């Protein structure tokens, strides 16, 4: 598994230009719209991690790596687990880069990130959890059909992250007494640390289920 993570790490280094571009766009966005700085870290981590993840699986597809790795002495379940572990690696890289950019931005423009609706740490966690949730929803489809056939789902799940709050918001206005609103109120009433823990536990639980499902699917695949 270590070698597969190393492969993803090497592939990451092929994307520096793209990452710089993403970062520059995000910085422009932050400076142009300082009311949205709360979500700077969340967006930065989500976008960078997602870009690295998408790029890694598209490189795998381009090089037909399933044939290569399945010819090597490694179990298929290990190949699947390595892909799930890479999700943590991408978030680590995203976090490092966003801290770097955040630090530089604040040095250039002190007070840019004030006042924050949430701490930088919470914002980062929000980005990481969003990325993990979208990826673990997508990966069983990827292992079932491969990158080419499943990428439409990847894009759909990616954009759903931006649209879900809008949908929930409009539902809240349309049905004020709904179960949905009660659920939102319930979560709003909870302290931040509890929400963060619940989010991480949800990722862990869904991640394990998704990984198990992907292992079953991938073990049956033929190349």
């Amino acid at each position: 598994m270590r070698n597969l993570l190393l492969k993803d790490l090497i592939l990451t280094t092929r994307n520096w230009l793209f990452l710089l571009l993403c970062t520059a766009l995000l910085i422009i966005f932050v400076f142009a719209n300082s009311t949205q700085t709360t979500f700077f870290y969340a967006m930065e981590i989500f976008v960078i991690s997602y870009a690295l993840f998408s790029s890694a699986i598209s490189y795998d597809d381009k090089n037909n790596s399933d044939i290569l790795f399945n010819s090597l002495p490694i179990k298929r379940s290990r190949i699947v687990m390595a892909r799930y572990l890479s999700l943590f690696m991408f978030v680590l890289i995203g976090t490092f880069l966003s801290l770097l950019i955040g630090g530089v931005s604040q040095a250039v423009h002190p007070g840019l990130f004030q006042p924050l609706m949430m701490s930088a740490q919470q914002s980062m966690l929000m980005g990481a959890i969003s990325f993990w949730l979208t990826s673990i929803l997508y990966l069983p489809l990827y292992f079932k059909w491969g990158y080419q056939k499943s990428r439409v789902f990847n894009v759909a799940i990616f954009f759903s992250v931006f649209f879900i709050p809008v949908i929930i918001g409009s539902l809240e206005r349309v049905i004020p007494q709904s179960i949905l609103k009660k659920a939102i109120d319930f979560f709003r009433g909870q302290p931040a640390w509890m929400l963060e823990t619940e989010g991480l536990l949800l990722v862990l639980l869904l991640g394990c289920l998704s990984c198990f499902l992907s292992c079953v699917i991938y073990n049956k695949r033929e190349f």
Partner: protein
Amino acid sequence: MSYILDVKDLRKEYKGFSLGPLSFQLEPGYIMGLIGPNGSGKSTTIKAILGLIRPNGGSIRIFGKDQAKEMQAIKQQIGFVYDQNHFYDEFTIGEMKKVIAGFYEYWDNSLFSQYIDRFNLPVRKKIKEFSKGMKMKFSLAVALSHHARLIIMDEPTSGLDPIFRSELLDLLLEIIQDEEKAIFFSSHITSDLERVADYITFIHNGNLIFSESKDDLLDTYRIVKGGPDLLEPLQEEGLLTGVINNQFGFEALTADVAAVNDRFKGQVIMDKPSLEQIMVHMARGEQYA
């Protein structure tokens, strides 16, 4: 007899195509060529041996071990070369080696460097900048650098220039010199197999036509050429396979040289066949059988 590769009654069913049952064996110290026209099932056979597809029946034993149960241990001692490059185009040789080497218990860095030097491969260039021949050389270097006992190659010589093809064939002969290793490779360039293979396994439309020693094959079969009036009596006696008619008469393959000589001596011409001629006539015979 301890076989390096022992395939028994291998079957694989697809919609519109079925492979097998195939049975063949390969001993250490030998090269076996797998031949057959395009779409005959050569790549499917190789994929089944490497565990990329699941057979519907039969068994594959490699180094005496059941492939289905001990795949990881077996793959430690298999080197593979595919007809297409499956390494990451964006990587350099050094980067790709770092990724691959960790999978093998007996990866030998110095042996790898020797092959890279011998093949004159540029270490700093990305694989995407390599020619087809260089990519094949790199695949070979990887396949040979972990002391594999069985080398499996799918169409390794297709698309290569004659000089490198010749080098590659020499290298294959060199590899089996210690009589502990074996090579199994598919090709439809029969002249390559004629030069290096000890055994030939021929499949056509998924069916095994033969799996025999190359020398026996070339000794057993003859190309028979004769006038059109001789075709009917020869065919009636079942002596011909894969008849090809031409303006002068016919050309076919026979496995019963003695019978043809007894009955038609002086009336027909008999020549030693090439592997390609055997393949063409056998395939034709199978097609019209």
